[in-house]
């Protein structure tokens, strides 16, 4: 796509998002906020999986840490401003990541994945047991949601779902943009090189563990922002946000959307939101449908939704150039069958 087409598409999406509550009503507004939260969560995950080649089974830790930090700040700090609560969420996740990074930055592959599973289980148990702080199974709920206030300029009530929609979307889309930009910087180039061949990165003059620690911390920070917005949106955070199911959500979304592209996980989040919305009208067994779709995608479209789009584009437009062409010819996935599923160089 040319720069101009990209600009137009971006503009149209922004206008649709701005008018969305007016077009579709408040119920679907809430659906899209949830979807955007998970989109950011999945994108933060893909910074590790698709970009750096790090497979984690415990990314919900950071989502939960963000949620709990925000909930605790709003519960215990009198008159805590909205943005400060959000900052607490971000810093909560970053602090946890900094704590773990000296250990995990030197790991990769299954050790990295399993250690995250262990740590996230530990945190899950702590969240259940430390009732005095976390509220145990009930979690922390009913905390006040402060207005968005710039002293002397504006004060917007955030208990109004419409206002919160705009706030949440601004934060989430802003974070997505920052994450996207990050992948375009020289640093973004170094992390994909680590994914491809970390040994050679060392021989090109870059420090690998430090690079991993930085992208890890940033990724977790984004997950923390997603968790923070989630806690404010639900006005509740409970141990479920730290659980295994929550850790698998971004994995599955990234797989279904497409690990190869920055936008894949966003598509994954959208697809799952749509499936859930449609399925719940007929049956409660949403996970059955989601599971089936995951199986089909893994078997037939290992590149995810982005892969399907590339095939369709190829058929319709006779695409022979660029990454789409590579996908169709199986260059990206054919050779990699059975290897760790890492892509992400859009």
């Amino acid at each position, binding site marked *: 796509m040319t720069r101009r087409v990209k600009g137009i598409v971006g503009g149209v999406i922004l206008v649709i998002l701005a008018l969305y509550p007016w077009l579709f009503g408040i119920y679907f507004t809430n659906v899209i906020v949830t979807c955007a939260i998970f989109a950011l969560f999945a994108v933060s995950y893909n910074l590790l999986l698709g970009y750096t080649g790090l497979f984690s089974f415990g990314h919900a830790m950071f989502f939960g840490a963000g949620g709990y930090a925000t909930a605790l700040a709003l519960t215990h700090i009198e008159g805590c401003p909205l943005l400060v609560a959000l900052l607490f969420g971000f810093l909560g996740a970053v602090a946890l990541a900094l704590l773990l990074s000296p250990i995990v930055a030197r790991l990769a592959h299954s050790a990295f994945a399993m250690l995250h599973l262990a740590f996230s289980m530990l945190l899950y148990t702590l969240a259940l047991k430390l009732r005095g702080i976390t509220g145990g199974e009930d979690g922390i709920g009913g905390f006040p949601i402060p207005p968005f206030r710039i002293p002397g300029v504006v004060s917007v009530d955030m208990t109004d779902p419409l206002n919160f929609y705009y706030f949440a979307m601004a934060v989430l889309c802003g974070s997505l943009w920052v994450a996207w*930009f*990050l992948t*375009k*910087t*020289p*640093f*973004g*180039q*170094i992390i*994909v*090189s680590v*994914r*491809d*061949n970390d*040994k*050679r*990165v*060392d*021989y*090109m*003059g*870059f*420090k*690998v563990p430090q690079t991993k620690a*930085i992208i890890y911390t940033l990724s977790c920070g984004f997950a923390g922002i997603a968790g923070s917005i989630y806690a404010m949106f639900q006005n509740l955070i409970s141990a479920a946000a730290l659980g295994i199911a929550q850790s698998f959500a971004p994995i599955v979304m990234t797989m279904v959307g497409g690990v190869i592209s920055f936008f894949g996980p966003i598509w994954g989040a959208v697809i799952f939101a749509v499936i859930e919305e449609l399925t719940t009208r007929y049956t409660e067994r949403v996970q059955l449908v989601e599971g089936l779709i995951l199986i089909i995608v893994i078997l037939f479209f290992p590149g995810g939704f982005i892969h399907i789009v590339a095939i369709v584009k190829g058929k319709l437009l006779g695409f022979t150039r660029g990454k789409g062409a*590579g996908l169709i010819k199986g*260059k*990206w996935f054919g*050779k990699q069958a059975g290897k760790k599923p890492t*892509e992400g*160089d859009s």
Partner: protein
Amino acid sequence: MNILETKGLYHDFNRLEVLFDVNLKVKEGERHAIIGPNGAGKTTLFNVITGTYAPSRGAVFFKGEVVTGAKPHRMVRLGMGRSFQITSTFNRLTAFQNIRMGVLSRRGIRFNFFRKVDKMEDITRETDEILKRINLYGERNMPASALSYGKHRSLEISMALATDPDVVMLDEPTAGMSKDETRYAVELIRKLTEGKTAVIIEHDMDVVFSLADHITVLHLGTILASGPPDKIRKNKAVKDAYLGEMEG
């Protein structure tokens, strides 16, 4: 002056001695070939010098500084480049991106979060210049894994040179190449290492004698002989241990 020197270098893998009192001296500006039969310890010597692992005893001097056990990224920053016997590129990145990593490294652009790398025009220009010099400009946007074997090897060698090192360590640059590819690679190496110091592990004697100013023969983990090509060719011990069987 010796730009690279090892003194009494020993290395063992679980007590299996691979390097035994190696005293290598590489003069500035020369093309120094290291030859020897399989298992002589050539790649291990490279690994110890470039920081893959620390030697069990002995010292490595680079530009007069003790660098024993320094990590690879530190050696690169001090001005040492290395290529590998088994091609080791960033396979899903394009040829351009592979070379650009070296250019970024040399310019010290590491943790830069505020500019798009594609917008750094001087970096792009410099990378493109390197690609043209190594005849890979036509394959600029191809993933490294999709390059032909010869071109992939050229990329491998050029990545070591993209950081503009003072000393470049090439581990069997012509490994697995056809006769034509080898001839091309030798010319490429000659061109790219002009004015630099190069240490080259090589099996192909034609390559060694056409490229090297100085040859060190490694045998059973220790230096058997070291000198200019003519002397090495005539050396009795070398003939017995190595060259004889090759030429015979």
